[in-house]
């Protein structure tokens, strides 16, 4: 199977998954609650209000028609109008997504190399002091939720040392990079959490590879430990890391929601919290769909990269 056939199959598969995702979103947001209009308006709404809302949302038509209209609109760029902000959803999402992407991108840039480095190092020093220290740090890293990390960092760096601002609130129009300082604490928080999973998995993968027979072959070939690690252990150990990083991107998206809340950062995550708390159905369903699509894309890229790097997948 050539790589292209693999990519084509994987693309088709992603498209199917996205289709399913859109159905799940639609069912959960619009069908599950029963009457969406009264859900949006709350219990003390008058029947007239509800009827107006139903009209506005087009709820009087059957669900499958609404679903198809929604999907058709989404594909054509008509992402609906926010109920609370009375603005089209698309530009809102785009700006916020840009902001979140900066945050996520910076985090990946810092966390992934660091995590892999730590994981590889811990794997090589298995059972010794550096491994134990890294294990302890990463255990604490995974075990403290983002909002605890974020608040701890705020206390230390914003209140005690007064080096950095405690919140990343900024004008919606400002470019994200304008105030680089605002990004440091959120990125640090996200890095703490990301670091833990990836480095632990990299360590495991490294240890597994080091136990393989072909490492013994390489060592007994007399090529020197450096070569054994660089040529034989690392390439095989880092392969599964690709998948792990992709999976982490899903977790990172959840973390963004929390971290953006902690730092009042104007990103997609906070918009989603806003949509949920305000029952802004059009905004909510689009935000979730977009996020899931990005996650799918990340997984797709990871799979293709994995196949490209791994000779055993190609044949």
């Amino acid at each position, binding site marked *: 199977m050539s790589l292209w*056939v693999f990519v084509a*199959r994987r693309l088709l598969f992603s498209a199917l998954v996205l289709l399913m995702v859109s159905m799940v979103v639609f069912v959960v947001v619009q069908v599950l609650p029963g009457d969406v209009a009264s859900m949006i308006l709350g219990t003390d709404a008058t029947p007239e209000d509800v009827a107006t809302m139903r009209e506005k949302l087009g709820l009087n038509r059957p669900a499958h028609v609404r679903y198809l209209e929604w999907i058709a609109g989404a594909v054509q760029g008509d992402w609906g109008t926010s109920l609370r902000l009375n603005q089209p959803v698309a530009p809102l999402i785009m700006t916020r997504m840009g902001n979140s992407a900066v945050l996520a991108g910076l985090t990946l840039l810092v966390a992934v190399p660091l995590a892999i480095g730590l994981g590889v190092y811990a794997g090589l020093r298995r059972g010794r002091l550096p491994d134990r220290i890294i294990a302890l740090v990463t255990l604490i890293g995974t075990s403290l939720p983002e909002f605890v990390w974020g608040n701890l960092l705020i206390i230390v760096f914003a209140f005690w040392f007064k080096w950095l601002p405690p919140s990343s609130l900024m004008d919606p129009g400002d470019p994200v990079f304008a105030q680089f300082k605002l990004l440091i604490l959120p990125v640090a928080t996200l890095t703490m959490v990301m670091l833990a999973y990836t480095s632990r998995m990299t360590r495991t993968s490294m240890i597994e590879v080091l136990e393989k027979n072909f490492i*013994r072959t390489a060592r*007994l070939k007399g090529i020197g430990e450096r070569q054994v690690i660089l*040529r*034989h252990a690392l390439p095989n150990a880092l392969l599964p890391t690709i998948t792990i990083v992709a999976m982490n991107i899903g977790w990172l998206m959840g973390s963004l929601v929390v971290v953006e809340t902690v730092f009042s950062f104007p990103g997609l995550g906070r918009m989603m919290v806003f949509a949920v708390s305000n029952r802004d159905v059009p905004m909510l369903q689009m935000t979730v769909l977009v996020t899931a699509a990005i996650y799918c894309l990340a997984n797709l890229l990871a799979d293709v990269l994995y196949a490209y790097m*791994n000779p055993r997948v190609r*044949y």
Partner: protein
Amino acid sequence: MSAVIASPLPPLPGAADTVLQVAGLSVDYATSRGPVHAVRDISFAIRRGETFGVVGESGSGKSTLAFAVMGYLSENGRVTGGRIDYQGQDLLAMPRARQDELRGAKIAMVYQDPMSSLNPSLQVGIQVAEALLAHERISREAARARTLELFAAVNMPEPAAIALRYPHQLSGGQQQRVLIAMALACNPDLLIMDEPTTGLDVTTEAQILDLIAALKHRFSSAILYISHNLGVIARVSDRIGVMYAGQMIEQGPVRSVFGRQLHPYTAGLLECLPNLEFGRKSRSLRLIRGMIPDLTRMPPGCSFEPRCPHARERCGREAPPLVEVAPDHASRCFFWQEQEQARLAAGNLPPVASQYEPAVPAGSTSLTLDPSPRGRGKSAAVSLLKVDALTKEYVDSNKLLGLFGSERVVHALDGVSLTLEANETLAVVGESGCGKTTLARCIVGLVEPTRGTIEFDGIPLGGTAGERDRELRRRLQMVFQNPDSTLNPRRSIGDALMRPLEMFRGLKGATARDAAGELLRAVRLDERYLDRLPNQLSGGEKQRVGIARAFATNPDLIVCDEPVSALDVSVQAAILNLLGELQARERTAYLFISHDMSVVRYLADRVAVVYLGRICEVGPVERVFAPPYHPYTEALLSAVPVPDPDAEVNPIRLEGPVPSAANPPSGCVFHTRCPRKIGAICEQQTPPAQTGTDGHVIVCHIPSPSSAMKAGRRPAS
């Protein structure tokens, strides 16, 4: 450690060309139960151009010995005494950097399990060239050229193409050739081979052994060859050492050791090995009673004393030293002379199994607790098992929505027909991937055949086991290959045996327990085992429980899928004898799946030889193992390494790769590799089934030399 002479052997003649000298080597492993003395006081030397074979069963310490010489013990392993001298330099005292210079260049190793020993994500050419670049000052271009030369030297077809492949794209034999090429890269003085052919098919093994023999002359390295297989050791070695419980118990020139067998363990090992000469009807295999001692708590005396048929009081008290019994031949036995005399006196008389292990106690009950007559053999006209034109195809599809990818049909079985009578043993023999296991699985109902019929005592057997009648399931049982997975690790032996008793014979509570105990006794295990978990049993014991479980239902037919292939030879002998004995008592039929020609020769009444999902020869065992042969049977037989250094090496070898079952060759499926191919007819026409005497059938175009063979109808059509 016992006070024995460190090196009882006189200095070797021409010691100047001694490449490796091991003296008094001991290795311990630290474990939670205390130190395991894996290698104890071993001394030997290997000269240039000489092969020293080390043979022993699992746990004897032979691999530890090999890795100790390589300086690569696992973390808990430690050399506790002795020296390892490579060309006069003590390897153990050598700095790490110097060791790295030697390793891979002057001291190289070939491993068991070639697939896992090669880096899956590097092209094999690079992996070989790497060794050259690490040890020799040569350019990448020169390294590449040398790699291709090496690939040619190990008889690799198209070296340039192979060099670009990844390990998973090569066959097992090719992978091992890569490892051999890698080991030979820098013209090593010392080559260590640790079970290099274990796990390979017998015809591939024969090719690798031929290759090793040829390379030995060309490279004149000293070789330390480790194997559990006495036949392989006999073939490759000049001198050998027999290891038991960490010690060399006998060592010397290969002919002298095999010929005189001056230690009871050596003699026992050779006698419990089935060979191509005899079947169980003529004599049963000798056994070595008991099992390897616990290496953390060694008895004070001879380590073989608890299992030795000639043991005396002195043996339990005092550890025997390695004494020289003949020039360059030593045995670790006080009574080696008596051992030799006893063996000579016994001559060729068939030894009686009961001499070594008590036979079933007199008056022991039959396993048939259920007195009602069995439904077997209703009429003589109906065979117990009749398989007709059985075909199993696997569809290997990687299509998605039928849009992308391809579909391949793998023909695991292609029109197999055979019959099996009550109380008969039919062996199905062939190499890995030939379909023999699929056949077994179809019959017991683990796999549904695509086409064809299976009749059991005249009743058609449908589909999977779950769809069959309880009575049919009772009458048709199975014994599995792997002792470590044949029993549920979370359930006691008693549970494993009581479940079929309850299901098929309605026994409950104490009655079921008594019956389970009875079954254990029948397979020579203590009733106390009922409460044990499988991990408290040895491999052979677990296999016995697996056999007891199959016999629990009073079956008429037991399908045995390679039941002894994972066992050591001494354990294998005991299981083979047990199977024979139970069959004689219970009048059960066996369908015996195996890759091992010697085992088949020993146990079978009739044999079917399978190649690429088709039967190429079937008949009584004496006929199949004697000419006229099917060319494939002949190749299989000539590939078997015989435990006799003087056995002539039969030169029939199969060329080329085994064709894919997804795309079998036209005409005769064997024509691509057949050494006796007669012409275009083999490629174009399906060969006829030629029937000889006693139901001996050979499916081949070659006209039978005997007039008794006459062309017949193809059985599968």
